């Protein structure tokens, strides 16, 4: 049975619309794996020798003390970063395959995720050093089993967090509570939990407890999804949303562009994926706050921040233009719309989104006018250059977005992922370079002016660039239509 599932998995990967980009990405991810393997193995060494040599503490006790933070980190990092696996289960439901094995396969896929294996790179070298330094072998094995089970238990917990909002709220409340206890020094978490994490070493039988936890969480997820494999369950089809009657007639005065704008606004309001991407863009507004403390030490980062803070909408939503329209692209291609108009409407949407971002980010004035000017310059650059780049890469991305995201038992709720981040790199590097040149020539202000100037220039050549982009879209039209036909990848 497993063989057959793997067969389906392989086919869906190789025959997916985004195979070419998917492959390049996989290779890149492969390199990242090797890199992280070394980094984590290195950390494993440091985690042993640093406490021993520098602090004169027992490394195992030292690490065990901090493991509670590790567990919390696993839970949080997974929730925000780990992609949920997708299994196209609908055609399998009426075949002689037990529902349990469908679910089991979907869940097993998650075990192979980066978030589990990377820990292996850390804990295996660490444990081997323990063995070589003549720690009790049975204890080390017990400790290993305990930690491994905990890691996998957080893996399954994460799946539940993604699926059941109630559990998410519960766990979030628990974490906040623990943080409060620690913060107000009511209890000291590490002194409480260190013995817990040491117990499996002192008495390997204690490892059975985390193992039990793992089994429990695994069974829980199996049972949960087992009951969801019905066509009318929420996991399989999106919730029928109540009609969000948005009165957008005030936009009518903008003529034909309004027709598209109204449509795109409804797209954002009524589709989960689109909504999430816009929220993501909103979160970008606050991205700069992380850097505010030491912003002046490296002025080049000012532009970096400027691009991201003002361009949240562009990076979150714009990145996927025109894939948002993938499910009805043939309609768009046969309606009474010239390609130029269609592209212009998308461009306007991105411009308006960026302008809103520029206005909303005005609270950065608090950190000085120079900071806000950098953001404004970044905004101008986003409008003048990056908006084109987004449209341009859109012509080649061709990954269909299934708006309804039906037919998937294990849906992926996050539309923002590593791939989006990779696509944004070229949009950020060039303005940083421009800024740097400006600084070399004269000053920081000059750098900011350079970035803004290039943005304005890009804006000025709008018609030229549009004609050019239009040609590319025309040329790619049939391939795009073809690619959008393949819904599930």
């Amino acid at each position, binding site marked *: 049975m497993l063989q057959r599932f793997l067969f389906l998995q392989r086919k869906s990967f190789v025959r997916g619309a985004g195979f070419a980009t998917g492959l390049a990405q996989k290779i890149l991810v492969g390199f990242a794996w090797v890199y992280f393997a070394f980094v984590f193995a290195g950390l494993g060494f440091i985690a042993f020798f640093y406490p021993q040599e520098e602090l004169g503490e027992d490394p195992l006790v030292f690490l065990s003390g901090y493991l509670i933070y590790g567990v919390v980190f696993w839970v949080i990092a997974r929730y925000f970063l780990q992609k949920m696996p997708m299994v196209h289960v609908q055609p399998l439901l009426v075949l002689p395959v037990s529902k349990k094995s469908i679910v089991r396969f979907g869940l097993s896929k998650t075990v192979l995720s980066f978030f589990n294996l990377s820990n292996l790179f850390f804990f295996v070298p660490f444990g081997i050093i323990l063995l070589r330094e003549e720690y009790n072998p049975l204890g080390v094995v017990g400790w290993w089993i305990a930690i491994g089970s905990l890691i996998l238990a957080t893996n399954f917990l994460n799946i539940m967090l993604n699926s059941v909002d109630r559990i998410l709220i519960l766990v979030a409340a628990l974490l906040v509570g623990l943080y409060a206890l620690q913060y107000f020094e009511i209890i000291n978490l590490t002194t409480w939990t260190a013995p817990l994490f040491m117990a499996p070493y002192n008495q390997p039988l204690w490892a059975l407890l985390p193992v039990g936890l793992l089994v429990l969480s695994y069974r829980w997820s199996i049972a949960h999804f087992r009951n969801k494999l019905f066509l009318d369950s929420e996991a399989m089809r999106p919730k029928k*949303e109540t009609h969000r009657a948005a009165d957008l007639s005030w936009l*009518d005065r903008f003529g034909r562009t309004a027709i598209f704008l109204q449509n795109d606004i409804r*797209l954002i309001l009524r589709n989960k994926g689109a909504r999430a991407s816009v929220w993501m863009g909103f979160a970008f507004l606050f991205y700069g706050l992380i850097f505010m403390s030491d912003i002046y030490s490296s002025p080049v980062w000012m532009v970096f921040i400027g691009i991201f803070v003002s361009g949240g909408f562009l990076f979150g939503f714009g990145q996927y233009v025109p894939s948002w329209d993938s*499910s009805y692209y043939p309609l768009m*291609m*046969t309606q009474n719309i010239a390609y130029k108009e269609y592209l212009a409407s998308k461009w306007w949407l991105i411009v308006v989104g960026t302008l809103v971002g520029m206005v909303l980010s005005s609270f950065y004035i608090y950190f000085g006018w120079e900071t806000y000017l950098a953001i404004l310059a970044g905004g101008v650059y986003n409008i003048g250059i990056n908006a084109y780049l987004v449209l341009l890469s859109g012509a080649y991305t061709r990954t269909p977005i299934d*708006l309804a995201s039906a037919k998937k038992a294990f849906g992926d709720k996050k539309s923002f992922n590593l791939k989006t981040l990779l696509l944004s790199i070229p949009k950020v590097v060039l303005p940083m370079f421009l800024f740097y040149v400006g600084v070399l020539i004269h000053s920081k202000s000059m750098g900011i002016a350079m970035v803004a100037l290039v943005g304005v220039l890009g804006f000025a050549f709008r018609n030229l660039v549009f004609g050019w982009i239009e040609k590319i879209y025309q040329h790619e039209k049939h391939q795009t239509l073809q690619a959008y036909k393949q819904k599930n990848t």
Partner: protein
Amino acid sequence: MIDIHSLSKTYGEQTVLDIEQLHIPAGQTFGLVGNNGAGKTTLFSLMLDLIPPSSGTVTNNDVVVQKSEAWKPHTAAFLDESFLIGYLTPEEYFAFIGGLRGMKKEAVTEALEAYADFFHGEVLGQKKYIRDLSKGNQKKVGIVGTLLSNTPVVVLDEPFANLDPTTQIRLKNLLKEEASATGKTFLISSHDLQHVTDVCDRIVVLHKGKVVRDEQTSTDTLKELEAFFREQL
């Protein structure tokens, strides 16, 4: 209205469509029949420039479809659900389509009244998104979307499929009325021989990508078509 010149579509070794010459005059109700894989949808997709031909051209009202987008203003089409926007209500969808064709909202609402019977109270005013409608009702939305905007050319791929029997009859009447009242050119494909012969002035049979029959509809057409397809057994 529509002229096809040595049009062919080849995938690898396989030729899925090969039409030497086909002329569809303005105002004709043109029926296309053929088994699965005969090339019906391929032909329509080529007419709408959704796929590129391997050779030849389609001319729609003096516009070469493969070269210019100027055919779009006078052509409306509904091939499958990818011509619907799932997250809109039917009303919003019609306003969107009508808007693109230069109709005011009031004009759209007014035009929709003519289709109240066809909708049978199941489409308008439901406060449902199109994606939540049944397949049959989705089809109704798509069909009316093409009729609404009064384009001279209307392309419908299997409009009868998925409709309930009553609505099939209503659709037949609707198409006949539209054809005689407005002089639109209709291109309709169907697997239902009875329905196409009822509606269409002319029937073309595609078989393995080639036109094998092309005739004006007469009282004998249905029988002849049935005989033709029986031979394929």
